[in-house]
């Protein structure tokens, strides 16, 4: 495995990727909450 080629794609750093993954989860939970309430 090449350990040198570790630059994050699309974002400037890996931290931004981690933040993005967690943000997607938060958005999904909120959408699911809305979905639950809307159809109940």
């Amino acid at each position, binding site marked *: 495995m090449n350990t040198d080629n570790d630059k994050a794609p699309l974002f400037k750093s890996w931290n931004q990727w981690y933040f993005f993954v967690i943000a997607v989860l938060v958005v999904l*939970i909120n959408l699911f909450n809305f979905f639950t309430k809307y159809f*109940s």
Partner: protein
Amino acid sequence: MTYLDWIVLILTLTGIIAYGLYKSRTTHNLAGYFLANRSMGWGLILLSIIGTQASSITFLSAPGQAYTDGMRFVQYYFGLPLAAVVVSIAFVPIFSKLKVYTAYQYLETRFDVKTRTLTSFLFLLQRGLSTGISVFAPSLILSSLLGWNIYWTNLFMGGLLIIYTMSGGAKAVAYTQQLQLIIIFIGIFLAAYLVVHMLPANVGFFDALHVSGKLGKLNVITTGIKNGKFNWSDQYNLLSGIIGGFFLALSYFGTDQSQVGRYLTGSSIKESRMGLLMNGIVKVPMQFLILLVGTLVFTFYQFNKAPIFFNDTQVSKLENSVYKDSFAIAQAQYLVITKEKTEAVAKFSQALNDKHTDGIDGGTIELRRLQQSSDSLRGKVKQWINASGGDGNDTNYIFLRFVVDYLPAGLVGLLIAIIFLASWGSIAAALNSLSSCTMVDFHRRFTKHSITPEREYQWSKWYTLAWGLFCIVVAMFTYNIGNSLIEAVNVLGSLFYGVILGVFLVAFFLKNIRSGLPVFLGALLAECLVLTVFIFAKLGYYKLGFLWLNPIGAFGVILFSLVFNLILKTQKSQTNLP
């Protein structure tokens, strides 16, 4: 099954085996066989991670779970994206830097050989048994629904994939998983489309959602709070999903070789990280969509007669038991309720189309009343089946029963092929990981004389075959023992995962613990604690969902390791005193 179904089934399965063999060419050494020469891009890693985690039970059980309990099961996966982030930060760089073949190899570098051997052994024990069950569980469902011989089904379910897994190792596993997932998603999408298509003409997709929503099946987010108190025995809610699910996913992706082996195939840290993080993004919506198929099947059965119990084998047994008269009465009552429900749901759909508020409210109350009566009758039937020594849980049968009864010829064969493919994807990865641990953590570690890379490669192929045969034997043996063992093996993961994770967390984050003895003793004591907590919960002293065993095991190892480290340091300093 029609001839067309058989043709589709046989062509799909032989096609996958041929593709696996075609992709089998790799270098004859351990890096080629277990890590595909560390050459994979993130897309292939992502599909391999998904294919390893999603077994046939995922595709059978999840829609059934949504049918009976609603969509709240999706919360089980909320901890996964958080775990993907932690594994990307802490685990991937270290595994990559040390160029390990197995996760447990790292523990010898960090602590000592006994800690490595203990964790690798715990992994082999639980993964070997659970893979045997992964062969047996879908075989049992197919043999019950289609009247196939269980032993032959076990043999085909667990045996055919050995051909390409043994031949091509990690590379063949990854490439076949890619093709398998494409076929699986096409099949599931077609099934979902046909469910909506088979609803009455005036009922669309959103109307179907309204029906299942009003009947409590779209309960994606639940708090687990009942009468103002948090219910610790509730398996799936927001808190248990985020915390318990996080620890389970962290142990699974960080320390289970069947997953670690997937992302170690990455050509760089970047590819491994991207595979894991993309899985963190797509897994939750993917599970949501699979569960949604289950709610659509539920709505379909509001307009059509649903079986009172979805496993015909158990129904036949009940009809010959002491409960046969009670069952006949229940069936007659169920038929009346079904008729009333069909009329009520048609009125409700009309009110939805007319946007008639009173009709919607009144229809909701009536539908919920009928659903309660229907659930109560199903509950009684399940009790009678359990009381007469059968399996009263038909969750895994619901989706496939619908497929066999209602989907057109050809598609039935495709969906049955999908059950095989989903099983093969996860079993193949498990065999590859079991073989790699046996070869790297035991054979190579404890053999005194060195052997050539070619011989190591040959040995690894034989270990893959041996583990494949072991899993088939477990599957055959499980059938004779019955359902109690299946339940035991289902919680087996949570009994060991937390402790294995705890060892890795100490290794990564508690740098002041340098020797292996405190961790080794801490892991043994934490395992005793987890087993004690589990046994007392089973004996009924308290109620506890099995997901909570993961954080208990992990924190147990951390706490006990710190205590043992302190004791051993104190003893050492006292011994060194003049």
